Structures are given as C-alpha cells and as structure tokens.
C-alpha cells in the first residue's frame, strides 16, 4: 500500500524522462556497435539500420592490422607498472612528509602540490628534450618513468591527507617491539592505507590507460604502441574505411568499459572522495 503510494505518476513521468535521456546518451554506442558488423556499402546507405548480414571480417581484419594483442599487452604493461611504482613512491614520500614535517619536507610538499596547476601541454615541448637527454624516448620503461613524474603529485597529495588521520601510537608500539622504520611502514602503515591505495589505483588506471598525448610524444616504434596510439595511426592510414575503423574502435573501448563495469562501485566512490578533497 505504502509502496504503491510512493511510486506516484510524477515519479513515473520522471522515470520516462530518465529513460529517454539514457537512450540519447547511449545512442552513439548503438551506432558504433551496429555498424562495426556491417559492410561498408551498408554503412554508407543507412547507418541506422540493423545489419542484414554479420560482417565479422571487419574484426578479423582490424585485429590483425592493429596487432591488437600486442597493443593490449603494451597498454596493460605500462598501466600496471606505472601504477605499482606510483603507489610505492608516493605512499613512502607522503608518509615521511607527514611524520617528519621539517622545513625541507614542508617545502617539497608545497612544491609537489603547486605543480598540479601546470597543464601537461605547457611542458610537453621541453619534456621531449629531457626524455631524450635521459634516454627515455621510444621505450616503455621510459614512458613509465614519465608517468611516475606526472602522477606523483596527486597520488602523494591524496596519501598525505589520509596518513594524517592514522594515529601515531600504532607505530610506536611496533618500534618498541624492535621493528625497523621500513618494517613499520610496510608491515603496519601500508596495509592501513588500503582504501586510499584502491582509489589511487583506479583513478590512475583510467588516466594512464586512456592517455594519448604523452605516449604519442614518447613512443614512436610501432611495436611498442599503446591502444590509443594504434587507433590514431589506424585512422591516419585508413581514412573513412568505417567498416574496419569502427571494429577497431569497439576493440579499443571494450577493455576499459568492462573494467569500469567490474569496478564501478569503487570508481564512483573514489571520484566522490577525490572531488571532496581536491
């Protein structure tokens, strides 16, 4: 009785409105999926129609041209190693800065945080120079090191805020038990940071997986490209060949969409937490 009352005509109207907006939002995906299994003739004659015959060769062809498995592995390797490294270096730095807030560390903290206002495009030109100087060009490890540099500010900042809320007493009792400073951090403090570690992992994985401009500047050999780079060069070579291009786009977007659907709850929580702080 009560429940039936609560679902009023007004709510029903809003439900319909929401469904209509959701359909409009999802429309581009409909076009991309449907046309990725159509022949080019069918695409050009009517992009809105359902396919009369499944043209799966589109996928076979662009899978091969893009060397999709290799690109996927490259993207995965770069994303995973960058995030692992970022978590290690930024959690350690943040911990030390919170527990030993002397002049140098305070200065470094301000430096890290204020660098967050520098947009990437403002320093990309000399970055290429610096990358050449330090032998980071055309190497996946080199790109990963660049991500260490660009990602450390935000990750460190988020850890810094979190560590401040952890009571020092837990660590002190471990020191009494004869634990070294490194042991205290890795065995006692780091496990306590887990919620923030998850947030930092997710935020950085969306960023690094999708990042295009930095890999474009650093990676030139075709064999070490990431998925966005492969898509970019694919579109450069096969302009307007939408049958293969759309199949390539679908392959490019499926992994990250699946990842999002699997981690949806944590990602949205992470964004909410990050937005409140930053």
């Amino acid at each position: 009785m009560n429940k039936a009352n609560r679902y009023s005509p007004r709510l029903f109207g809003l439900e319909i409105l929401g469904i209509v907006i959701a359909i409009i939002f999802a429309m581009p995906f409909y076009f991309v999926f449907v046309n990725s299994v159509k022949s080019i003739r069918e695409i050009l004659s009517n992009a809105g129609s359902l396919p009369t015959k499944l043209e799966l060769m589109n996928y076979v062809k662009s899978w091969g041209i893009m060397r999709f498995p290799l690109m996927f592995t490259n993207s995965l390797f770069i994303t995973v190693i960058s995030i692992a490294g970022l978590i290690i270096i930024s959690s350690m730095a943040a911990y030390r800065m919170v527990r030993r807030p002397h002049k140098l560390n305070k200065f470094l903290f301000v430096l890290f945080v204020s660098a967050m206002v520098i947009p990437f495009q403002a320093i990309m030109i000399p970055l290429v120079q610096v990358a050449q100087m330090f032998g980071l060009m055309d190497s996946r490890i080199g790109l990963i090191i660049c991500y260490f540099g660009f990602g450390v500010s935000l990750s460190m900042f988020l850890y810094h805020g979190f560590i401040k809320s952890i009571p020092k007493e837990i660590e002190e009792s471990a020191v009494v038990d004869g634990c070294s400073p490194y042991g205290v951090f890795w065995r006692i403090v780091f496990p306590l940071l887990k919620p923030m570690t998850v947030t930092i992992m997710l935020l950085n994985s969306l960023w690094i997986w999708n990042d295009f401009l930095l890999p474009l500047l650093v990676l030139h050999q075709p064999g070490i490209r990431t998925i966005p780079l492969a898509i970019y060069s694919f579109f450069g070579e096969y302009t307007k060949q939408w049958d293969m291009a759309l199949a390539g786009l679908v392959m490019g977007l499926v992994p990250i969409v699946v990842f999002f659907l699997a981690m949806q709850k944590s990602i949205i929580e992470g964004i909410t937490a990050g937005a409140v702080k930053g």
Partner: protein
Amino acid sequence: MPNKKRFSESVQQLVFVGPATLFFLIIVVLPFFLCIYYGLTDWNGVERNARWVGLSNFQRIFTSDTGFMRSFWFTARYTFVTVILLNLIGFGLALLLTQALKLRNLMRTIFFIPNVIGGLLLGYIWQFIFVNGFVSIGNWTNIKFFQLPWLGTPATGFWALVIVTVWQYAGYLMIIYIASIISVPKEMIEAAKIDGANRWQVLKNITVPMIMPAFTVSLFLAISWCFKVFDVNLSLTGGGPFKSTESLALNIFIEAFTNNRYGLGSAKALIFFVVVATVTIIQVSITKKREVEA
C-alpha cells in the same frame, strides 16, 4: 650514538622521499624551467644551439600571430559555453537520479560510461555519428537539426565539440552533485515542507545553497577540462574546418611538432600555463573563502 641516529634519519629521508622527488624534478620541474628558457629563443628543435631572441616571441604572438589569438578566443568561447551546459546538465541529471526511480542505477551507469573512454576514441566515435549517424536519423525523421553539415562549417564544428564534451563529462559532474545532494539533511527538507514550501522552493532555498561547495568543485573541474581540451579536438575536427576549431593546446602542439618552431611553441605554452594557473588559483581562493564563511 646521536651521530648514528642522525645518519639513519638521513638515509630514511633519502629512501622515503628521494625516489618521488627525483622523478618529479626530472619530469616536471626541469621541463618547466626549460620551457621558460626556450620561450626566449628561436630554437627549431633540431639544431644544437638555440639563439637568444629575448621577448620577441611574445611580441610576435600578441601582434602578428593571428592563429594563436584565434585559438585563444575559440578556447575561451568553447570553455564558457561548455562549462555552463555541463553544470546545468550534470546538476539536472543528479536531481533526476536522486528521485526514487526504479532504473536509476542503470541510468547512472549509462550517463557515466562516456567518461571512462579516452577522449581520442570518443572523438572518432562522434565523427562517425555526425557524418553518418546524424544523416540517417535526418533521412528518417526529416528534422533539420540532424541534416546540418556538422563538421563542415566553423559554427557547427564549434557546437559539435561542445556536444561531445558535454556528453563526455556530464556523468562525472552528476556523480559529484549526487553525493552532495544526498548529504543535505533530510530533517531540513522535511521542516521546510511542513512549513508549506513546494518542491521548487525547497530546491531554490535549501538544496542549492547547501550544495554550493559541489558547484565550486564542478565549476573548477569543468573549466580546467575545457581549457586543456586536446584529444577530442584532434580526433573530432582536427582543428578544422580552416583551423576554426583549433584549441590552444592543439595550436601549441602543431606549432612545436608540425611547424618545428619549438621556441615560439614554448612561448605559447608559457602563456597557456599562466592563463590556466591564474584561473585555477582564482577558483581555489574563492572556494577557500566560501568554506570559511560557511
């Protein structure tokens, strides 16, 4: 003994803070200072020696480089329009999804998905939609809107970029607004209703003032996304037609890596930095002030 302790402290400082600082200095700080230096030279990226030209790059940018000024105004207009639409739609969606709708979890997922896909891919997807998808909708419905040459004229190209950006980020702002709307105390709304306030009055006099911090955060995020737009711009319009939709970031990129004018590109990058940093600092200081008042 105290010496040994001091030594151990220094080693710890080095082990804990050293790696982060080293990467940060090489990848961010060093390029930043090099950018200032290159901006004062006519370096072409190939020669060993860059010639010092003082402020003449800046003089050129402000007096004779019509491309940069055009990109600047394009980016400013685009940012202004997109930020307003993004926040209106993000807030609207949040209001909708904080009602007791049956499908709201599914809707939330759909509204958010564009955000997890990279801008480059989104631009290509929409290139297809504007060129082929809209045409087929237009043939079917005969609505003029879908029959426009979307990527073919400067005016429609501008709006095409606005539409894609709004579609891309509205879900993100929606999440921020939802979190903030949910945190408005229920008792306050109940009390207002008992006093006879209608839905519109509750929204205007309670919800909106209570979620001011969310507006500030969203405004700031939207401004910074729009001002730095690159990926979507490159893949959707490529700056065309006739460079009319070339954003600042794209203009800097082309100046440096296509025209090989690294010196001039660096000078543009510096101006870009100053503009973005100024906007960010103003935004943050306003936020801080509001927080104190509240």
